[in-house]
Every structure is written in C-alpha cells, then in structure tokens.
C-alpha cells in the first residue's frame, strides 16, 4: 500500500493555524480600513450590508466547494471573504471614481437590490450568520470525520464527497465488502467470485450470477471499495486496497480457492488478488479485461469512450468537480438514471443504470490511473502463473479485440464472442458457461 501524504498536506493547507491567524488579522485590518472609508461619508450601513452579503456568498461558495470536492478551500479562506466584499462594493468604488449607480450594477452580488431587503442589515446579519453556520457545521463535520479516520489508522478521506464529507468512512479492514450471494454450494464445486468494472457494481453481474446459481454454483458478487453499496467503505482505492478487500471477502466467504471472474477494470483487481494470494484462486476468468499494451494506449482507448475518464486521466480538476457535483445530486440522479437509460439504452437494466452514479470520485480516479502505468494485466496475460481464461468481445470499442489478443500468451485460454464491452449484460448465459468451464473442457464443447 502506498500512502499519499502530499495530497493530504495540500488539502489541509487552508486549515493551517498559523496561516489562518495571519489571514484573520489581514481580513480584520482590511475591513477596518474599508469601514473607515464608508464612515467618512456617513454611509456605515452600506459597509455592513455589502460585508454581510459578501460573507453570505463566501460561506455558501465554500460550503458548495466542500460538498462538491470533499476538500476545504480555497487556500486563502479568509481573504476570500474580502475578495467577495470588494466585488460586492465595486459600484461604490466606481462611484468614488465618478460613475453613478445603475440597475445593472446588481451583477455585483445584487449591489442595488440588497439594500431593499425588509429588515435591512438585521436581516442580512441573520442570513449571513445562517450561511456561515452551515459552512462551519459542514467543515466541523469534515474535520471530525478526518480525525476519526486518522485515529482508526486509516488514511484521511480527502476528496470523498456525499456522506463522507460529514461522516468518517468505515475501515475496510474491519468490514467486509457489500456483496450479493447467489445459489448454494452444490457438489463441492468452487465458489465463484465476480468483480465488476469501472463505474459499475455487483448489479452488472446479476444476469450472469443468476445463470451460475441455476447451474449449481455458489456465487459471491461484491461491490468494490467506493462503488455501489460499498461506497462508505475505505478512503484509499488503489489496486492493492481493492485486492486486500477482495482477499478479505474470499477468506470470509469461501472454504477453498475460488474461481475469480472479473470484467474490465475488475480484471486488474482480480490479477492483483491472484498475484498476492495464489492460494485463494483456483482459476481466473477475465471478461473484456481492461488490458492495454501501455499507458498511452490505455489513455487513447478509455479517453475515446468517456469524457470524464479522459479528463480524469489528464489530471484535470474539471473531472473531479463534475463527479463531485454528481455525488451531490446522487439522490435525484439514482432515480433519474434508470429512466434515462430506459430511453437511451433499453438493454441496460435499471439497477445497473442506477449504480452507474453510485461511486466516489477517488475510487473512480484511482481505478482509472491504475490502468495507465502500473497495471499488472499485461505481464499476467503474457505468462499467467494460474489458469486464466480471457473472454474477448469482437465488437468491443474500449478494449479492441486485436489489441487484447496481441497481449495474450500461449498459456491463456481464449474465448471470442460477438458483442461489445458490456458482454456480461449482452450474453450472460455464454459468459456463465465460460466461467463454469473446467480446465479440461474445451471451449467449443462448453459453448
């Protein structure tokens, strides 16, 4: 496991006590000067109104920022209030330069209209203190959560949004991945564990798991850390973390080595599990694994399929903001996604569409970056130490069939099927049959 203290210290920068004291002194002195400039002209209530409006906006912006990015900011928290104040009073500065007020000057945080609020500065005081209270409440909860995580020996949940802003994440060493179980163990066959891909959950495997259950296989389908119902589990989401959580699940759920089947990004997790704990894995089945020759190819292929993935791989903060906004709107989006999917892609089951928006940004980001330069897949596929089957979708536009074929060594069982990257949804019965294959059974016989 690799911790990332750089990311923590960056996120904590706005909260350094010494810096905050200096900022507070600067803000107080600046506001006293501004107050004096209004007092000279017997216009103190103007100072108060615009300061209180600025405090309201600054508090709300910082609140939204905290909720959307999971990180307090900006770096200069308190001068931001001064910045808002100077913006709000800009028409007064223009007036001193010879420009009277006009109605359009309401663009400066409602410079004209704010004076007409019933109750005047008393009302603005109440509004400003309420906004400040909301931000401080969220910030306090965020601090408590991060302290609790540190006390538990977890890395802090920096950048986690949704409920993680207000409450600490659960330690994945003390909890098991949320999972579905299908079927009963029959005839002493191995348990099958199915790992989902990026932006998905156990729901993605449900049609296959139903087929496996009907065939007498006991199947366990987890939601990986930060995805689906495991969204409140863990604060760090690299391959090693995901693999450790899967190992823990297998140890708790299976009597012997399992058949580990995985889709897309899940294949990287599965290979990490098999590499670290070969004693737990009897056979790997990798369905359209997200395996690429190198980072550049991974960037090109994945980026071509998803705007948000492309931004994330480029390290753009836009992706984090977009994802954080989605997390903030998760509740309505989980209702909206199945409705939208039914109209745009009727083949996608409602629960798959719903879980398509149930993940935290760091889990998504770390999953993507793990496929770029440190993916264990190419090395494993070239010479697998354990029995490994790869299912290739001939029309896959994310992992091109030819590109994937070129990575496969002679020790890999290869199954080609017509279909796209979402093969387990498109051909659940065929995929289930490949998963149930014994090493001695030929592919053609099974299918």
């Amino acid at each position, binding site marked *: *496991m690799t*911790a990332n*203290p750089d990311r*923590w*210290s960056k996120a*904590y920068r706005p*909260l*350094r*006590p010494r810096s905050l004291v200096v900022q*507070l002194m600067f803000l107080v002195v600046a506001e006293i000067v501004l107050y004096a400039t209004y007092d*000279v*002209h*017997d*216009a*103190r*209530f103007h*100072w*108060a109104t615009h300061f*209180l409006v600025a*405090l309201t906006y600054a508090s709300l912006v910082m609140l939204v920022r905290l909720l959307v990015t999971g990180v307090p900011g900006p770096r200069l928290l308190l001068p931001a209030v001064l910045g808002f104040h100077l913006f709000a009073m800009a*028409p007064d500065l223009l007036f*001193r330069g*010879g*420009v*009277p*007020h*006009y109605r359009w000057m309401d663009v400066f945080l409602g410079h*004209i209209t704010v*004076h*007409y609020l019933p109750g*005047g*500065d008393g009302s603005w*005081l109440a509004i*400003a*203190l309420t906004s400040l*209270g909301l931000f*401080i*409440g969220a*910030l*306090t909860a965020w*601090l408590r959560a*991060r*302290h609790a*995580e*540190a*006390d538990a*020996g*977890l*890395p*802090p949940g920096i950048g986690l949004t949704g409920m993680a802003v207000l409450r600490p994440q659960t*330690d994945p*060493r*003390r*909890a*098991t991945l*949320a*999972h*579905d*179980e299908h079927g009963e163990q029959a005839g002493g066959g191995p348990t099958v564990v199915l790992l989902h891909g990026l932006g998905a959950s156990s729901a993605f495997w449900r049609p296959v798991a139903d087929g496996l259950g009907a065939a007498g296989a006991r199947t366990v389908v987890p939601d990986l850390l930060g995805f689906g*119902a495991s969204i409140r589990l863990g604060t760090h989401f690299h391959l090693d973390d995901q693999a450790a959580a899967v190992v823990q699940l297998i140890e708790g759920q299976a009597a012997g080595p399992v058949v580990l089947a995985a889709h897309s990004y899940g294949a990287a997790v599965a290979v990490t599990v098999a590499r670290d704990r070969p004693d737990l894995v009897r056979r790997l089945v990798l369905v359209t694994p997200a395996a690429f020759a190198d980072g550049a190819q991974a960037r090109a292929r994945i980026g071509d399929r998803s705007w948000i993935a492309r931004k994330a791989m480029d390290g753009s903060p836009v992706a984090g903001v977009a994802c954080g906004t989605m997390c903030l709107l998760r509740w309505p989006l989980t209702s909206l996604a199945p409705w939208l999917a039914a109209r745009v892609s009727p083949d996608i089951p409602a629960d798959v569409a719903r879980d398509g928006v149930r993940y935290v940004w760091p889990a998504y980001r770390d999953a993507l970056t793990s496929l770029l330069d440190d993916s264990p897949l190419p090395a494993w596929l070239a010479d697998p130490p354990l029995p490994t089957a790869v299912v290739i979708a001939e029309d896959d536009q994310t992992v091109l069939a030819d590109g994937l074929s070129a990575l496969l060594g002679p020790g890999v069982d290869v199954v080609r099927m017509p279909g796209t990257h979402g093969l387990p949804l498109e051909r659940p019965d065929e995929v289930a049959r490949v998963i149930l294959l014994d090493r001695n059974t030929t592919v053609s016989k099974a299918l």
Partner: protein
Amino acid sequence: MTTAVDRAGRADCCDDPQDAAWGRLPAAAPPLPSWVPAAVAAVVALVLTLVVVLLVRPPGPLDDPNPADQRDGLLLDGPTLPAEAAGLRFGSRTVVVLFERDEPTGPAFEKWKATVSDDGVELVVRVGAAGEELAGLVGIPTPVDGMRPVGYAVIDASRTVRYATLDPAYTRNAFEVDVITGAVS
C-alpha cells in the same frame, strides 16, 4: 444484497503494524482541532452582531425612513418640471436645489457650495417654507420626523429630475453631488 458488514470483532484485524500505520502518519490528521471553526465562528457572530447593533445606527430624525433610499447613488428618470416653477427657470443647464431648514452658513457650506457649482452647475438654496413647492415637484422624501427635508435634488438641462435625496450631512458629501451632476450634464 449484504451491505458492508462490520467486522469489529475480527481478532486478526489491523494487528499488522505496517497495515495500521497510515492514519498515524504525522500528516494524516487535520492540522486543526474540529472545535476551532465553531469557536471562531461564534466570536465572529458576536462581533458582527455588536457592529451591526452598535455602529450601524438606525435612521436619525432627519434621515429617510427607508435608509436604502437615502443617497442611493442611483440616477432617476424622474418627473419633468415645467420650464418655470417655484420662481426658477429650468431647461438651460443642470440645477442643484438644496433644501435646508435654516440658512446654511460657515466654511463647510462654502466649501460644499464651491465644489458643487464649480463646473457650471447652478446651485439654488431653498430654506424652510420657501422650498415647500419645489420639494413637492421634485419628489424629495419626508424625513423621519415628518418635518421639512434637508437634502438636495438634481434637475438636468432637459428639466428631468435625476436625483432627489435626503442628506442631513450633505456638506461631507460634496463629491456625491459632483458625481451626479457630472453624469447628467
């Protein structure tokens, strides 16, 4: 679906010191105790309340009952005056009419007068009842005490009232009159 299962009782959980080390790294805990923001916010709330209550005074007897309307700096497109009204001729230049309760005197007024009228603006002073008719025409507000106004109006060269405000401390704010007359001249 089995949701994430609490395994707090698991004996071998977190025994590996390497595994449990992350949160104990010096940088892992936030640099600020979680009670500090609330404490600072409470002090800020107290100070702001005191500032608003004590320093930002309520309107005085000569002020506009609605503080927002006093010296709002907003150009009006007010009523158009007749070419001749209340003994004054309008229409050839910008006129500033000062309404006062007593005859203004003293160096502060002289300085204000010089500033207001130094760019070709005509200044007219109406004291007490003499300003009553004009005050009604330009629509200057009635102060809190319900008596005659202390303030001024600006009428542009096309006889339109562009500004009318109470300002009991007008001698401190000559630049405001200049801004308005500069914008309408």
